[in-house]
């Protein structure tokens, strides 16, 4: 480990060997603070963990037992790189609920939709290529884009999602600058972290703009079936088979522990995705895929999603009521589905700078800067209401209110704009998913 030039050590004998992109992969203060969030004393409004306690765990245990007894030799064996055919058939049935008419051959099963994101980025992005994404955007996607040395250009949203006029002007200016835009990354349903949904009217407009500019659409849709009072809007993939890669997941509608997601892509793209996936992992877990298939065959999965929707609606109501009561000086949207509320803090408060104070007060959230590629977002934070009980949510927001008050006091003392310096995106951890 000695450095031959100086005689010292840098504690990592391979420092000179890493790829340039690995130098950004570093442990951070923020990640360290999240280690406290798992303690029961802390109300974590940070992670997007689904409420697994709402699942019929004993029934699932019986199903898993039967699976291994009856199909153990298949479940515990290697499988197909594209994914189990039976599961792919089931996936087409799930997607039909959002108007997608796909053949099982169009589907590539992945290890969570996070792997699908990585595969799409692998096959499309050269260093310096541009990905256009909503402002703000899912932290896990930004981490993948950063790892592949993409540049991300954000386009603002409003209450109806991505704003077509601003997408148009952004793509036009990027073209004028000679920048190569490879795809638009979008979470059109119950956005993470924004909580908004791309309106029915805007969906074809966005597709038309992208088509005209020769830009592929990467539609990431883990929350589409989790609307509280509304039926799902048609997926963008249902309106364009050639211009959209669709990503789906069982992590939010069933259980993330299985790590099963999927991609649906135009034929040629799909072939490359399969090859890229085989190069990365050979095949997705057969045990997990068959477990999901068994669940879809034998459980009332649509009834379970309905229960989840009701539970998440109660929690959404709890967090909105608590915000109204305890932090009325902040602003937020009222999500109609999904897991997240995107909160704009009172002027001058920096959410990243405030986080240690929140951890001291035993409440955790994700600072808004995590959702931008360029250090914006310090005036926002994301609250997740999916996991804690309504009572815990109320207590968490009450604690957060004391933190906001203390931070406002600090801002009053030292002046607005004296918070933490702008930072780049942190690499995602499951705490932030």
């Amino acid at each position, binding site marked *: 480990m000695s*450095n031959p030039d*100086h*005689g*010292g*050590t*840098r*504690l*990592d004998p391979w*420092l000179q060997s890493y790829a340039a992109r690995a*130098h950004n992969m*570093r*442990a*951070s*203060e923020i*990640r*360290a*603070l999240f*280690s*406290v969030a798992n*303690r029961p*004393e*802390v109300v974590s409004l940070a992670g997007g963990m689904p409420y697994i306690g709402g699942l019929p765990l004993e029934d699932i245990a019986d199903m898993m037992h039967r699976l291994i007894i009856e199909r153990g030799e298949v479940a515990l064996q290697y499988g197909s790189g594209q994914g189990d055919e039976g599961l792919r058939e089931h996936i087409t049935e799930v997607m039909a609920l959002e108007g997608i008419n796909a053949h099982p051959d169009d589907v590539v099963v992945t290890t969570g939709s996070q792997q699908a994101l990585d595969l799409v980025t692998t096959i499309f992005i050269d260093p310096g290529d541009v990905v256009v994404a909503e402002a703000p955007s899912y932290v896990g996607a930004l981490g993948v884009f950063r790892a592949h040395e993409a540049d991300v250009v954000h386009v603002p949203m409003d209450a109806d999602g991505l704003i077509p006029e601003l997408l148009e002007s952004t793509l036009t200016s990027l073209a004028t600058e000679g920048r190569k835009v490879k795809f638009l990354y979008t979470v059109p349903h119950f956005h993470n972290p924004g909580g908004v949904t791309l309106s029915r009217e805007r969906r074809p407009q966005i597709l038309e703009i992208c088509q005209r500019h020769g830009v592929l659409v990467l539609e990431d849709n883990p929350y589409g079936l989790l609307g509280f009072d509304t039926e799902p809007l048609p997926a963008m993939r249902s309106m364009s088979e050639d211009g959209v890669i669709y990503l789906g997941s069982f992590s939010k509608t069933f259980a993330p522990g299985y790590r099963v997601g999927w991609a649906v892509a135009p034929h040629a793209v799909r072939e490359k995705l399969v090859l890229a996936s085989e190069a990365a992992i050979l095949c997705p877990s057969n045990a997990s895929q068959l477990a999901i298939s068994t669940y879809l065959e034998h459980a009332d999965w649509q009834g379970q999603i309905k229960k989840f929707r009701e539970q998440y609606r109660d929690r959404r109501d709890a967090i909105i009521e608590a915000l109204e009561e305890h932090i009325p000086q902040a602003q937020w949207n009222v999500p109609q589905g999904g897991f997240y509320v995107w909160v704009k803090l009172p002027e001058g408060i*920096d959410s990243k*700078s*405030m*986080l*240690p*104070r929140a*951890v*001291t007060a*035993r409440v955790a959230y994700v600072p808004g800067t995590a959702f931008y590629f360029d250090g914006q977002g310090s005036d926002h934070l994301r609250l997740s209401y999916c996991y804690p009980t309504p009572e815990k949510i109320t207590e968490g927001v009450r604690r957060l209110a004391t933190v906001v008050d203390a*931070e406002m*006091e*600090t*801002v*009053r*003392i*030292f*002046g607005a704009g*004296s*918070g*933490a*310096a702008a930072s780049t995106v942190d690499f995602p951890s499951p705490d932030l998913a």
Partner: protein
Amino acid sequence: MDIMILAGGLSHERDVSVRSGRRVLEELKAAGHRVSMHDVDQNLIPSLRDLGDGVVWPLLHGASGEDGSLQALLELVGVPFVGTGSKEARVAWTKPVAKAVIARAGVTTPDFVTLPQSLFREVGAEHVLDAVAARFDFPLVVKPARGGSALGVSLVDSRDQLSRAMVHCFAYGDMALIEHAVVGTEVAVSVVGTGDSARVLSGVEIACEGPYDYDARYNPGRVEYFSPARLDSAAAAAVEQAALTVHRTLGLRDLSRIDLIVDADGVPQVLDVNIAPGMTETSLFPQAAEAAGGSLAEMYRDIATAAIERAGS
């Protein structure tokens, strides 16, 4: 030997503590000892009562682990434990108090002032910061008066950076310590033993590209470590003597890490005192122990044995 490592806790340094605990656990387990790791939670006291003839090794960093609270609990329950006792821990944890004690013992420490957030509110932040700027030459270091792992610490080069540094600091605690940033060779000296039998391990020099902040401490790369430190013999001896004096004067037990900087005149100035030094793969105490020869496991065993013997005497 039965050893119960306490790691985790609820402080901002939980992550570092868990990593420290795992490293010590692995070393001692590989050497054949029966080692378990516990968090500080509702099960702690029953677990302590089941410990029998064993010893507790608190590896909690930050508040409640280093401020004397946990040590007071262990003394209350009456179990032998590694490290400094509760009263001495409380003094060492509060940086301004520790600095005052150290200075009285003749060891140099950077000129400093301690200011609570409430004072800025009452008197007006601009007035206070102007007074700081008038009194001290830049660069300055702003840090929480209690805490570790460089959390909340800023290096300030000019008056206009002070407000941001104060906000960053006050997010971690309500008392700020502002001290003159000494330019020189930064050295961490690990001390093992107690009282007259305490001895220093080889000092580890920290040559850091940029500030020695959280990023530099826990991501290999930005820091080059030299053990022994590249000091002439007079400076090296002065550093060792200063560390020993601090360890003994503050009444520290079993192990500590004293962070110093050797200024342009060769004078060691004490920056910080750690009664539960980090034991992670990038931490300074294990580096110093390895540089001293012998195995880490043997050193950790000797430290635990000393705690048991002390309890028996």
